[in-house]
């Protein structure tokens, strides 16, 4: 990656008379060098992939298969494939922007610099809310797996405990992140490696069985039992399974050799989980009829594991589900805190939101602003709404991200020098934007109303709080 200096063009002040903190920096492979200090880059490719895969895998494999099969039948595999294509169309432009601007804040940062402060505020706050909804969704998924775990060890408590357990974990993660200094990042890498191993065994065995190699009859069923429309609405629902690659961008400022590692981590994690998702649905729908699968609900995969490998299979999946949903939730809490910091640094939220705790060195205010709403939303226990609103807000962000790539490329500023250039420009970003916005159209009206409401509130906040802040082209 080449060393370079970028010009600054931003300024203005918010209602509290705070201005964006914008300084020229030099980015090297190993550190960000500012005028008076340096910021070490310590995350490698493995760490980036672990964030991406670790965030995504919990939802797509362990929570959605039953729900998706109930809506679209075996064609739910197609829904996941559609999601993967949309995610890839966005991951490529996102990679280009991330290598041009390897800063924390990720997608928010690119859009605010490409399209200005209004779009930046809407997207920055939407990213915050979107991550909050996504985290609440992972927590509720965890709640289902926790209840199933208790059932496996012989304590049947019923689904009434799902929400209390989800809320308890949400509170625990927020508090632990605000007060803990243990390095959970290494743990995260281990968890992801373990999950991938469990899935490899499970999918190999299930795949052989589904193809008839093991000689067990599969339940006969048509591939697209409910027509094509549910395939698309299901794609909109399960798109939450692909949000993790944008979280890789939120740690862009901490990645070593960002020019190489960011594109590999973002595109790589989407490819890995996309293949796993499609294979999982294939295996799950060949184990049970769609209606049966749907009746198992959020933890349908446990029954699929039981069918193939008996009790050991069920226990392995329950254990994997617990780990996966926890890892998704924790990674998202951290991303949310980073998103809040990025917005606050630019004076779109009060500066105190990015205060660091003197005792623990942790961003306790931002963690609280993440954890508080997460816990409230987890308490609703509405899996599908939480997932769809999270996807809605992210898809808006993804669409605008593709738009800002086109805007930047049409009139490339001097500082714009990405190491990675999107192949197939301009087709890929244009399709990425269209696909992102189109997918929103297939969601439930409730989710659309909530998501749109969030955006209106964000825009209102801009006009009230930060209308004089300028960010376009301000690096």
């Amino acid at each position: 990656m080449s060393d370079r200096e970028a010009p600054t063009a931003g300024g203005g002040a918010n209602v509290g008379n705070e201005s964006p903190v914008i300084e020229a920096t030099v980015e090297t492979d190993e550190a960000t060098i500012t005028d008076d200090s340096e910021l070490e880059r310590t995350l490698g490719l493995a760490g980036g992939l672990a964030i991406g895969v670790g965030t995504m895998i919990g939802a797509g494999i362990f929570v959605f298969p039953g729900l998706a099969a109930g809506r679209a039948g075996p064609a739910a595999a197609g829904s996941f494939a559609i999601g993967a294509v949309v995610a890839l169309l966005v991951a490529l432009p996102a990679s280009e922007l991330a290598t041009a601007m390897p800063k924390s804040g990720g997608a928010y940062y690119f859009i605010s610099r490409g399209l200005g402060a209004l779009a930046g505020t809407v997207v920055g706050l939407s990213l915050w809310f979107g991550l909050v909804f996504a985290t609440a969704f992972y927590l509720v998924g965890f709640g289902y797996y926790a209840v199933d775990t208790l059932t496996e060890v012989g304590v049947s408590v019923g689904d009434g405990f799902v929400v209390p357990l989800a809320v308890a974990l949400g509170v625990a993660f927020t508090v632990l992140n605000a007060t803990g200094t243990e390095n959970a990042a290494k743990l995260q890498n281990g968890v992801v490696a373990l999950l991938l191993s469990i899935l490899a065994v499970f999918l190999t065995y299930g795949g052989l069985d589904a193809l008839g190699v093991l000689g067990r009859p599969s339940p006969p069923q048509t591939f697209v039992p409910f027509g094509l429309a549910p395939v698309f609405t299901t794609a909109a629902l399960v798109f939450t399974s692909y949000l993790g690659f944008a979280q890789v961008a939120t740690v862009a400022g901490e990645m070593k050799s960002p020019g190489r590692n960011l594109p590999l981590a973002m595109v790589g994690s989407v490819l890995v989980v996309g293949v796993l998702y499609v294979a999982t649905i294939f295996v799950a729908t060949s184990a049970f009829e769609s209606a049966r699968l749907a009746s198992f609900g959020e933890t349908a995969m446990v029954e699929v594991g039981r069918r193939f490998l008996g009790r050991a299979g069920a226990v392995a999946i329950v254990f994997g589900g617990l780990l996966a949903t926890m890892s998704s939730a924790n990674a998202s809490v951290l991303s949310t805190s980073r998103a809040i910091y990025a917005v606050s640094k630019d004076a779109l939220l009060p500066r105190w939101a990015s205060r660091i705790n003197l005792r623990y060195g942790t961003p306790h205010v931002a963690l609280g602003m993440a954890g508080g709403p997460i816990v409230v939303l987890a308490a609703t226990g509405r899996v599908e709404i939480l997932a769809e609103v999270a996807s809605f807000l992210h898809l808006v962000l993804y669409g605008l991200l593709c738009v800002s790539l086109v805007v930047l490329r049409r009139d490339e500023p001097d500082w714009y020098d990405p190491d990675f250039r999107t192949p197939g420009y301009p087709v890929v970003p244009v399709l990425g934007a269209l696909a992102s916005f189109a997918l929103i159209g297939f969601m439930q009206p409730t989710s659309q109303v909530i998501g749109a409401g969030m955006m209106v509130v964000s825009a209102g906040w801009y006009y009230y709080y930060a209308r004089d802040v300028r960010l376009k082209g301000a690096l």
Partner: protein
Amino acid sequence: MTRVLVPLAVLEGESVSLGLMNLLGTVDVTVLGYHVLPEQTPPDQARLQYEKRANETLADVVEEFRLAGGAADSRLVFTPDRTKTIRRVADEVGAAAYTIKGATGAVERLLVPLSGDVDVDRVLSFVVDLVADRDIGVTLLLVTDDESEGRRSLDEAEATLAERGLDVRTELVVGGDPFDALVDASPSHEAVVMGEQAPSLRSSLLGEETDRAAAESVSPVLVVRRDPENET
């Protein structure tokens, strides 16, 4: 000129002992102010809050080093990984050695263990630069199983230093643990100069020998870096 990196946890009230400052008076010094962050905290976020205070403290330390004799400058790094930062900055400034903090008064005699897989030539040449024409004694310590070979290499090292006018003693220990011998010898010395060892299973389990030496001997340790060219 020989340069030494002095890492300093600048926001945690860490300071450089006067004895170490004077010992480094003959070499150039880069004070590496660092602040370690938990993974929840983006380095940039900490910078926003602490940069000014950290740089003010660093400026004072640099001034003290200049008064002690050598040329000094400073770098400030916010990092989740202290070891990586020390290694990177040491490479960038071309530091021959880095320090591990410890308390000491005026340094009269340096302990220089040569046991194990260390680059003896680099260590000796650093000791020569560091002592320069000052009245600081050097004890070379070698723990080995092969007495005659050990004696031979100690004599050779002693001759190298004596040739440059240094006051050298040698101590040969046959059999036994090099680390225990170092700890036993440390009370009669005010600082330790030792070579960086190649990473091994032992060091990854027990921690770097250099860090353990600093902890056990309480005195400052100067770690002479391996030749970056020879690393794989």
